[in-house]
């Protein structure tokens, strides 16, 4: 039912979403931890920066990322200097853009989870000889498990569903940057509605299942 180029787009989308989600968990966890526990003045500004992708059009983000990662941008100069070339119109560029774009979807559930845990279990851990790092991994992370599940699902799903920023940073290169949403756009442009339907219906089903899973996980988490 899917053409080889459809399958390539699906595979690329899953690869992008997986890599992005893993990176987001690595980057987002310390940010969420700091945001949840600091009372410093920079909490507000940092929270605002993290949340900005929620309100900015993808074209704005894409535009500035293009400038930053382009041959005259600081990130672009840096990537060329360390020998990996320029990021725009490559898989690496897509990953960077996706990480920025999906950051709030990972940071906010984690921050909420860490805030809900509060100081109390961590104080108890400290009086039981756990260093701060030890307490983070042995108490905070297990207690924040529902938050990590939500963050993982939302980060993954949101990356699967992006379009505008992919088009600006990645373009439309088969096997490198052509993800499912772009492929659907191509099909529609070519008036191939049957092929568009196949992928689009798949996306609808995917979104429904993801959100249903989230709902079930959350309601189970509340009960226990």
């Amino acid at each position, binding site marked *: 039912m899917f053409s080889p180029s459809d399958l390539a787009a699906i595979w690329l989308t899953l690869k992008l979403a997986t890599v992005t989600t893993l990176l987001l968990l690595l980057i987002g966890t310390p940010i969420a931890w700091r945001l949840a526990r600091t009372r410093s003045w920079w909490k507000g500004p940092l929270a605002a920066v993290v949340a900005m992708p929620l309100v900015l059009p993808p074209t704005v983000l894409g535009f500035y990322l293009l400038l930053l990662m382009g041959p005259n941008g600081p990130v672009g100069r840096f990537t060329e200097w360390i020998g990996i070339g320029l990021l725009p119109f490559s898989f690496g560029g897509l990953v960077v853009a996706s990480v920025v774009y999906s950051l709030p979807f990972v940071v906010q559930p984690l921050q909420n989870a860490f805030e809900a845990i509060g100081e109390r279990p961590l104080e108890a851990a*400290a009086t039981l000889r756990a260093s*701060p790092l030890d307490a983070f991994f042995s*108490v905070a992370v297990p*207690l924040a*498990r529902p938050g990590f599940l939500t963050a993982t699902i939302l980060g993954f799903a949101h990356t699967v569903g992006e379009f505008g920023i992919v088009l600006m940073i990645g373009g439309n290169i088969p096997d490198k940057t052509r993800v499912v949403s772009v492929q659907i756009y191509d099909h529609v442009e070519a008036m191939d509605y049957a092929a568009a339907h196949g992928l689009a219906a798949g996306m609808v089903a995917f979104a429904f299942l993801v959100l249903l899973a989230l709902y079930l996980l959350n309601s189970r988490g509340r009960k*226990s």
Partner: protein
Amino acid sequence: MSVAARFALAWPGFTLDVDLDLPGRGVTALFGQSGCGKTTLLRCMAGLERGSGRLAVNGETWQDEASFMPIHRRALGYVFQDARLFAHLDVRRNLDYGRRRAFRRAASADSSRRDAIIDLLGLGPLLERMPERLSGGEQQRVAIARALLTAPRLLLMDEPLASLDHARKQEFLPWLERLREELDIPLIYVSHAPDEVARLADHIVVMDAGRAVAQGPLAETLARIDLPIRLGEDAGAVFAARVAERDAEWHLARVEFAGGELWVRDNGTPVGREVRVRILARDVSIANSRHDDVSILNLLPATVEADAAEDHPSQVLVQLRVGETLLLGRLTRRSAQRLDLAPGRQVWVQIKAVALVG
């Protein structure tokens, strides 16, 4: 052997300023109304609040002007008001959490000690349960065992009974008393409940507005009448006694103390056993001569030591010496004048109620 604690800390609207030298073993109660700073002082000792000052526990300095030992390096056990068990671990793994970390090198060396503590607090049947399936009292027992299993050199308890209802408290107190008998390290116990203090403490620090306003051995300190903090209805004396006789006919027991003897309700304590006796000031009345035609069972000759005004202008508090034991009595100022009570005067005290508090 002592716990030397000097802390100063200033928050908006609150300052803590104490300099204490507490006994190196036994139970010390930090006693006072809520907001007096007793919990803050306990948290400073643990390192959970960063007060400036000095803390040395039986010769080991945990904190002074130049150094601050982080919480997780202090050999302490801390029992919070809310037990704070880890919700994602069952009882066994909660107990192991601190023990594993305290005994990283000799993990198996203390397994007999572990079993003894689990036994002491009656946790055997609970080991596989998750914390959410425990009652409040059971949670606190697990929390105490969890703290003890790190082999602390100082045990800190922040009102462990405060979150329990009356029935749970009565169920839990005997465990604490057993623990007190077994414990060979100092226990500092924060409480605002005079009955708990009377039952558990050997030493008391009375706190008010961030300062220690009185401290000393329990019996001596409770019998003082110059305490700036008023115990109100709870003013009274606590002292040690021994069960000398049990009267089967009347279900009464005779207890002897330094200065005399008292008849109390027989609660099953065997003859020869040490008990604590608590007599509230409001249950003591005074007569200038002996009256045998009253319902009151306990009549003792006493000497007036001192008197002090009470909060209400109609009342006075009188300190009375019976042998080597000090009692407190509350009466109206009018009665005190009519009886011509003054230090040195010989009187008879009539004691309406005596409580054995453990």
